């Protein structure tokens, strides 16, 4: 447990010490702030005020920007976690210290996830600001944040797994980004497959599973989906790290 905390602190500190962390944070907050401003402006247009839609149900998963930004930042934050260790050779000193593969994987994973979730903290200001001028459905806000946290947990695990398979940060970023986009596009696949397969595509579609959170519903099936996929990806990462020793 102590080694896990040592790993976790170092990884989290590194994210705050390297330019990547700050670039990701700036891009993320810039895009999200712009989307928030745009939504508030658009939903206040005379033609739109009669539409009974909450800003936050659109902000959490209702725009293209939400998905593309999450795909890009989770890929960018996780790309160096293992790839850099392999490239610089520090994996040798790390793995010959009395620390287990699981501690290494979890330390890196939770550090990246913490950084990603902490980036969302300033967006609470949007809720506060909007709450002063309009009625906010806090149920939607809460479920939106919960859904986003589960989605971030899954995407971080995916990025970590890809990073553990390569020595190049660029390759890790690119492959993670493409896989995440493909995962998101599964939702559209259900329209072109036979009805028999549709139910399966619907279940494995990230967008479909996230829909409930955007609507303010906390569905246990979505929790099971996100948590089980995350655990599966983390397990695969541990095996991937172990497999490097066998090569």
């Amino acid at each position: 447990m102590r080694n896990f905390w040592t790993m976790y602190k170092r990884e989290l500190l590194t994210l705050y010490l390297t330019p990547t962390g700050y670039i990701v944070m700036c891009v993320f907050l810039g895009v999200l702030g712009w989307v928030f401003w745009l939504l508030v402006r658009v939903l206040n247009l005379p033609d739109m005020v009669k539409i009974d839609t909450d800003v936050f149900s659109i902000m959490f998963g209702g725009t293209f920007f939400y998905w593309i930004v999450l795909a890009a930042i989770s890929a960018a934050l996780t790309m160096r976690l293992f790839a850099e260790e392999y490239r610089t050779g520090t994996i040798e000193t790390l793995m010959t210290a009395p620390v287990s593969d699981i501690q290494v994987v979890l330390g890196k994973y939770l550090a990246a996830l913490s950084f990603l979730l902490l980036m969302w903290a300033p967006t609470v200001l949007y809720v506060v600001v909007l709450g002063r001028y309009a009625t906010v459905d806090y149920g939607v806000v809460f479920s939106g944040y919960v859904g986003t946290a589960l989605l971030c947990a899954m995407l971080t695990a995916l990025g970590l797994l890809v990073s553990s398979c390569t020595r190049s940060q660029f390759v890790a970023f690119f492959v993670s980004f493409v896989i995440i986009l493909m995962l998101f596009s599964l939702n559209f696949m259900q329209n072109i497959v036979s009805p028999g397969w549709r139910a399966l595509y619907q279940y494995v579609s990230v967008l479909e599973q996230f829909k409930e959170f955007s609507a303010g519903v906390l569905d246990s099936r979505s929790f099971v989906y996100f948590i089980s996929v995350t655990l599966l990806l983390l397990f695969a990462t541990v095996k991937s790290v172990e497999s490097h020793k066998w090569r």
Partner: protein
Amino acid sequence: MVAVEQLVKTYGPVLAVDHISFTVQAGEVVGLLGPNGAGKTTTMRMLTCFMPATSGRVRVAGYDVFTDSAAVRRQLGYMPENVPLYPEMRVSEYLRYRGRLKGLRGQTLEDRLRFVIDACELGEVRTRINDQLSKGNRQRVGLADALISDPDLLILDEPTIGLDPNQVRRVRELILELGRHRTIILSTHILSEVEMMCQRVIIMHQGRIAAQETMANLRSSTKRLYGCEVKAPARELEVLLRALPGATDISVTEQGGWTHGTLRCALPDTDPREQLGAAVRAKNWTLRLLDVHEPTLEDAFVEITAR
């Protein structure tokens, strides 16, 4: 302290380590030598649990490196070749992190940190970022990292490479001091260093152990180099040297009117100087020099790895 039995490592079709067996007793300082690609680094990586063996067994302090990997890693300090460091961390920050990772906490950690910074002369660079360190300082940080947990077994891969002569001397002294109450396995290409620091050497060649001897035994089993300087035609001296019983590695050169000839003798306990002197006198050549060089580790290394 270390027992290696029939250790094998293959990388696909390449046999990197081929059924090697050796032991290292507690308190011994052993040099692991061999040409590039001999399998030294692979062997050290298996000893340090970084990679598993294809077959065979390694025990460190009684623990199996495969089944009790965590226990083994708690016993050892490892300094890999090229000393990989996290570039964004400061020296003291990095060593503190490594100390924590190796289980040190509180005052013990601070005491060890102070010791390794002093011992490895890192005081002046302790606040410097790893990425800005010179090659020599990186080596010293790597050594400090290996030492921080005060391990019973130290495995050092090229510990003095990149250091200036003064630093080399101080690191050697430090290793000698550490070797008084620790087991050290040291890999280096600097043979004089091994002669100074190690009680025993293991020479690897093409994945196998070509020799494992104490320094004294290795020297005595290595052929001595005999030399002579005469006033004679080079071809004739070469013929004369070849006629000596057991003569090998003959070399003849001419310089300033004198011909210098060297040879080694393949026959055990045979000194060809007497016969050589008599043969030169019989030819009425002027003899200026007749001597013998005691074999160095380099001679032994060259002889063993050339087989």
